[in-house]
């Protein structure tokens, strides 16, 4: 298995700016800061670059 089984990802905005990304792993929701040093954000970007994950725009 990959270290993180991310099944969905979506930007969350405040005041019109992307603040963080909500992701779902194993059915649980996590809020991930847009910060390269954060391991979840790094994994999101790795999976996006690999073409296995798409981040949905904020609602």
């Amino acid at each position, binding site marked *: 298995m990959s270290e993180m089984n991310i099944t969905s990802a979506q930007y969350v905005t405040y005041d019109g700016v992307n603040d963080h990304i909500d992701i779902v792993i194993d059915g649980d929701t996590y809020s*991930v800061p847009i910060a390269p040093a954060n391991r979840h954000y790094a994994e999101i970007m790795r999976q996006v670059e690999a073409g296995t994950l798409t981040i949905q725009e904020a609602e």
Partner: protein
Amino acid sequence: MPISTINTNSIADDAVTVPKVTDQVLTHRNLIINGAMQVAQRGTSASVSDGSNEGYSTADRFNFQITGLTGVAYTASQSTDAPDNFSNSFKLDCTTAASLAATTNTRFYQRIEGQNLQHLGYGTSGAKSLTASFWVKSNKTGSYGLWFYNAGASRAISRLYTIDSADTWEYKTVTISGDTSGSITNDSGSGLEMRFAIAVGSDLTSGTLATNWGSLVNADRHAGHDANIGLSTDDYWQITGVQLEVGDTATPFEHRSFGEELALCKRYYQKHGNETSAYRYLAPAFCNSTSQAQGVLTLPVTMRAAPTTSVSGSFQLIHASTGSSITLGTKELNESSVGLQPSGSGFTANSGAIIRGANDATAQLKLDAEL
């Protein structure tokens, strides 16, 4: 003896040696956090299987990952079975066995921040040796892999240790040379990983053990490893007293107080809220409308990085002597504070408020800045 009478005539020049005094006077030797497995903020037991609950599940700072061992399941726990002078160990107990594959790579590891390792002098001619020591116990005797990896330079070195007697706590020491070629990046990322092989297949064992620092060659990583945990439900593996220190001599384990160890762990993981069914306050807030409030949680320990947040259980907002159920959102996540955004209905607009657990033992805000 009065101090005034201690002189070179009283103490022979070779009577006081580093091993004799290290345990008493030299602190901060251990580069590993929570080596005695005292801290388990996430919980003391978890069922871990291939694809479920892998990662940081029990003992803080230690990560357990399963790869290529389809169908296997373990109970990972903070055990009270430990050698003398320790109160806890980390235990993996196989509950569903699986078959080894070439790709099997099941491992238990801790990553150390690069900025905490600059004194090792890696990448220079003065690179220092490191010595690992630990207590280990298993039903399965044989050779086990221990691997050190500098991700920034993509360089590694390997060792083996042997469990000689089944079901017996054994003390092991392993020394590695300093890496004169690969420097460790000076930041808050992973500078060095110390990894224990739990079960590994031929993809990682078919070469020659990499006993010197060099570029990563997977086949050389765990050559000689022959004891695999997870192929029988009899299998278990326990460890405690994990220490990694500069030099070529293992010194006695550096016991830190629970409070010190917990504070170190909170740089990487924190949880706030209830421990039992209660109404523990989480943070102050302000109702900016009848359906939304804003709050802030100032963190007791600055985290390694802006944390990932997750919320469990039920929270409520107390405003103008009234309580309202809320959905608790987070925002503006950074290393020293977390913004809170409760939403609901019937809030008293423009009033101060308190966010608290709603008599729910699982009402917790969890912050993860692990490596």
